[in-house]
């Protein structure tokens, strides 16, 4: 199981992947926006995206859970 967490305070601009999908290591899951910069959040493992903890428009804090891959 791999947990993907936010590296910084940011707004969730776009959710690219959906819960239940299979993802490959390096796939873009969501795109965050912070300080006018788009920051793609990538899958750190291959498997099934069992949980997607954010929605577009959410604000995430550093360390917040974004997704779980199994």
């Amino acid at each position, binding site marked *: 199981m791999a947990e993907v967490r936010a590296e*910084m305070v940011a707004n969730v601009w776009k959710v690219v992947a959906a819960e239940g999908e299979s993802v490959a290591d390096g796939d873009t899951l969501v795109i965050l926006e*912070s300080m006018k*910069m788009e920051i793609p959040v990538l899958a750190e493992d291959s498997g099934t995206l069992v949980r997607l903890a954010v929605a577009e428009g959410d604000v995430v804090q550093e360390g917040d859970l974004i997704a779980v891959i199994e």
Partner: protein
Amino acid sequence: MGIRSVAVYSEADAGLPFVTEADEAVLIGPAAPAASYLNAGAIIAAARETGAQAIHPGYGFLAENAEFAASVQAAGLIWVGPSPESMTSMGDKINARNLMERAGVPVSAGTREPVADLDAALAAARQIGYPVMIKASAGGGGIGMSAAADPGQLAAGFETARTRAERFFGNPAILLERYVERARHVEVQILGLPGGEVVALGERDCSVQRRHQKVAEETPSPGVSPQLRAEMLAAAVQAGQAVAYLGAGTVEFLVDVRTQEFVFLEMNTRLQVEHPVTELVTGIDLVEQQFLVAAGEPITFDPATLTPAGHAIELRVYAEDPKRFLPSPGLIERWTEPAGPGVRVDAGYAAGNRVTPSYDPLLAKLCVYGADRGQALERAVAAVAGFEITGLKTNLPFHAELLASAEFRSGDYDTSLVSRLRP
């Protein structure tokens, strides 16, 4: 100058120093820019409520928005900036390029109208020759910009540029230009006077960039000879005259390091972030001149006898990690500024302030002046070491590295300098 100031601020910025430093401050909306700093109606209403006579747009958000400038004037207020017409002609990069070409200002090979689709882009690139630069015509801040060395890269870059241009600027028009492989970004400060005269106040070298955004600037440019400088200053004056420019503006050029040829890049119809370096070597307060020009009063200096002296460097202190340059918002715990001869700090934050993810990462501008480049470098090194910011990551360690790098110290660098320091 005896002018009282009214600041406008969003909920995210309520605790920042500028709010308390102004004589009055008006809350204009929540953090989201569209609801506050881009909300023309709220800003003009704040001016009316407080009895303000003029609006100075600063250098972000609506500063280059001609529609906003026109609304300010229509509300019976003074716009501290050029006419909306000048702003419109320079706001669109394709239009500006064509206008400059007609005015005799050198431009690079490129498209004279928006590139409609990928087929048109591929055809245009064949004519211009690879590598090409892909740009959003309505763009700025490096957003959507990329270089393409072959048709494959052009296809990828073209789609990205169109999407970003639409999203950030509401206009998908794209232009292509020949890409200069070893280039310096050198810009000229101009000032348009009420009588129609346009004067040039020297150049600034802004080649130290990451993600096509400036990180450090200096004047005079160590890569510009006296003859090249004279040609560039003359071209910048021509550019300003071509659009009947009034007030402070900047004409940006690219200088090809190999050939020493320069081409027009774009014009910024506002004050620039990096204006302090020009102030340090000329002794002129540019913002004061902006207000005097807007009021129709004479400026404080004689352009005929203006001679810049010494050397100035500006280091942009960003809230970002110094390795990958990723944003680092957070709470500022300690903030201690350096001081001493030739050191000037223009800061937007202080200890206890929270830096939010809503806006640019710029925290402060650390500027140094020296009798020559050597002294300016020496003072910059000491000033960076003496600047303490804790609680979040800043790029101060990057500036220390930059100032120690042989390439920057030599003065012989180009716009790829940062990517060489961070391969």
